[in-house]
């Protein structure tokens, strides 16, 4: 349940921005993370809902941009988008791939506030 820690950090960032911008309420948050970064959106939404109760962020919606898994194959030289990480190239079946995308950590991109 690291989503609770993540939600707590999101609340801290919101408070920090509130001190600077003095908003009335938060309408929505835009977040991004890699598909393999083991962030579970529904668990994060639940943790955020619990922690934001009684704050300016209560009721705000979370929008997620999920970054795809990218495999770079050293055999055929292609970047391939895949469902999961695998050590074999889905295009040429070459056995040497590098994980080139999909583990990006959770970022808060934008706050929509009134």
């Amino acid at each position, binding site marked *: *349940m*690291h989503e609770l*820690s*993540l939600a707590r*950090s*999101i609340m*801290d*960032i919101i408070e920090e*921005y509130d001190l600077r*911008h003095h*908003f009335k309420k938060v309408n929505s948050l835009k*977040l991004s993370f890699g598909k*393999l*970064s*083991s962030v579970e959106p529904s668990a994060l939404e639940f943790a955020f809902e619990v922690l934001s109760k009684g704050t300016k962020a209560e009721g705000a919606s979370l929008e997620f941009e999920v970054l795809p898994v990218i*495999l770079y194959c050293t055999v055929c030289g292609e970047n391939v988008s895949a469902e*999961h*990480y*695998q*050590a074999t190239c889905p295009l040429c079946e070459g*056995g*040497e*791939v*590098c*994980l080139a995308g*999909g*583990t990006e*950590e*959770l*970022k*808060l*991109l*934008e*706050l*929509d*506030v*009134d």
Partner: protein
Amino acid sequence: MKIDVVKNVLDANDRIAEENKALFEKSGTWVINLMSSPGAGKTTLVEKTIEALKDKYSIAVIEGDIEDTCDAERVARHGVPVVQINTGGACHIDGNMVREALPNFDLQGIDLLIVENVGNLVCPAEFRIGENIKAMILSTPEGADKPAKYPLMFQESAVMIINKTDLIPYVDFDMEQAKRSALGCNRDLVIFEVSCKTSEGLTGWFQWLEDQIESYKKQDP
């Protein structure tokens, strides 16, 4: 109104980790964050490592567990300072937990601090604590598919120790697949094949660790 933030959510944790790291650099303490699934052999590896290196270096240990102190007791029997962190349900150690544990040590006299994380292949990979390296253990009964299932752990780690090689005749573990798959997550991953039970392969790990500590000491002003 839209406000651009573009900030890592764990930014606050990273800042605490950097502060920890500055303290470690000041005292010349090299820090390893040891991670694995529950039961992969973290505590046994810690015990073996202490026995091998304690005459040469002063070692301290932080033991992270959700509950209980039995691992800390095992480690304390080897005569090194050990502090237990009970995360009370949290599935990982974070920068702040380490910061709060540090006043229990005299860091100035410690060459090597081993932080044994909570047994978990998911969350500990995300939380920096101020370590020099992350090392992870994959034990053979877990199977060779773990890098494919938990790639972040393998990408973040500098070292993968494949433990319980003595069990290979009894479990289906494809060594080549495990290595190839882990190296796909991280080309620079250093791999050791060991059995903490028979001690086979451990000297390579001890030597590597010693080399890291020595080169760190040389950087130290």
